[in-house]
């Protein structure tokens, strides 16, 4: 039991901090730069990503180990996984709209954007590439999503402050956001060696 706990903790720390999906692996940057202009947007996007990421990794994990591998269909992986994600996003949208309208209002507008969020597809690939068990995949996807949200919220906070600082006009908007992200990434390098 202890050993599984240690293993799970390791996965959590490495996925959320050390190998932060945005700041260390450069995956999921489009929504990161696009949605980090305000804190509220950042949190909504983070929630939506967490939700879909966990669901998608569970579904693709089952598909990979019970259908694609036994049938030797590994080469169909890209197509199958992206279709699963696209379908899942649609389903989640419909279900939320019908049953949990409050939650839908909070993250509804972010859902369609998620289909082409590379972070989700990448996590489903990593989940099966690393040979994780089902429990580990769930922990892994939750930790990655937490790391994503953390980075998003951090940058959103910085950008809200940046709006009031005096900058050269050429640096306003995206350029300074990228440079702030670089500094954040530099700070996250400090987590290297933690696991």
């Amino acid at each position, binding site marked *: 039991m202890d050993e599984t706990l240690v293993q799970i903790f390791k996965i959590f720390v490495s996925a959320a901090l050390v190998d932060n999906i945005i700041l260390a692996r450069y995956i999921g940057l489009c929504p990161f730069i696009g949605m980090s202009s305000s804190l509220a947007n950042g949190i909504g996007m983070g929630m939506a990503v967490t939700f879909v990421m966990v669901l998608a990794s569970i579904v693709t994990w089952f598909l990979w180990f019970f259908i694609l591998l036994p049938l030797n269909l590994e080469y169909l992986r890209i*197509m199958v996984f992206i279709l699963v994600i696209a379908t899942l996003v649609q389903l989640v949208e419909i279900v939320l709209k019908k049953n949990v309208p409050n939650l839908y209002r909070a993250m509804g507008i972010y859902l369609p954007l998620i289909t082409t969020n590379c972070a989700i597809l990448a996590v489903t690939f990593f989940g099966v590439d690393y040979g994780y068990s089902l429990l580990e995949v769930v922990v892994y996807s939750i930790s990655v999503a937490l790391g994503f949200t953390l980075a998003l919220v951090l940058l959103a906070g910085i950008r809200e402050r940046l709006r009031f600082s005096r900058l050269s006009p050429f640096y306003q908007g995206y350029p300074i956001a990228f440079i702030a992200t670089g500094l954040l990434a530099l700070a996250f390098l400090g987590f290297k060696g933690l696991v």
Partner: protein
Amino acid sequence: MKNLWSYFKNGIIGENPILRLMIGLCSVLAVSVRVENCLAMGAAVTFVMVSSSTVVSLIRNWVPSQVRIPIFIVIISTFTTVVDLVMQAYLPSLSQAMGVFIPLIVVNCMIMGRAEAFASRNPVGLSIVDALGMGVGFTLVITAIGLVRELLGYGQILSIPVFPEHYQNMMVMVLPPGAFFVIGVYIALLNRFSRRSK
């Protein structure tokens, strides 16, 4: 002819996918450590871009608009799979270096965006020119970023040393922060450049 050229140029200057529209960033920052990887990535993206735009444009009159997104995704992922398998077979070391970013071309918003915004509404010839322009624009920017990073980070260009031997490698350029700094400075330069020309 002049018209075609303006469509081609649009992808390189007017609506450069990376510096102007901020799409397709993941692969740019991840593989731009070495110029060699950048060129391969540019070629792969351009191939997928041109082929899927061609197909999308050819079938644009038969696709019902409600299901167009899944259909585009299937088309794009078909070509991505082709690139992935070809690279694994013939360029194993490059494919290793780029890892997950080859399959991730499928969710490169740039390709989906052009399929949706351009190829699904325009005839085949124009779509090919537009896709080619976007692909070349992508390749140019990614190579420009890779040039700076490889030069400062390793003191080399295309793995050929260019600096004297006692050059101290600037490690930060090879690490993630360097990528963000370089692209930030490039966008700022572009802003300055285009504002002055107006």
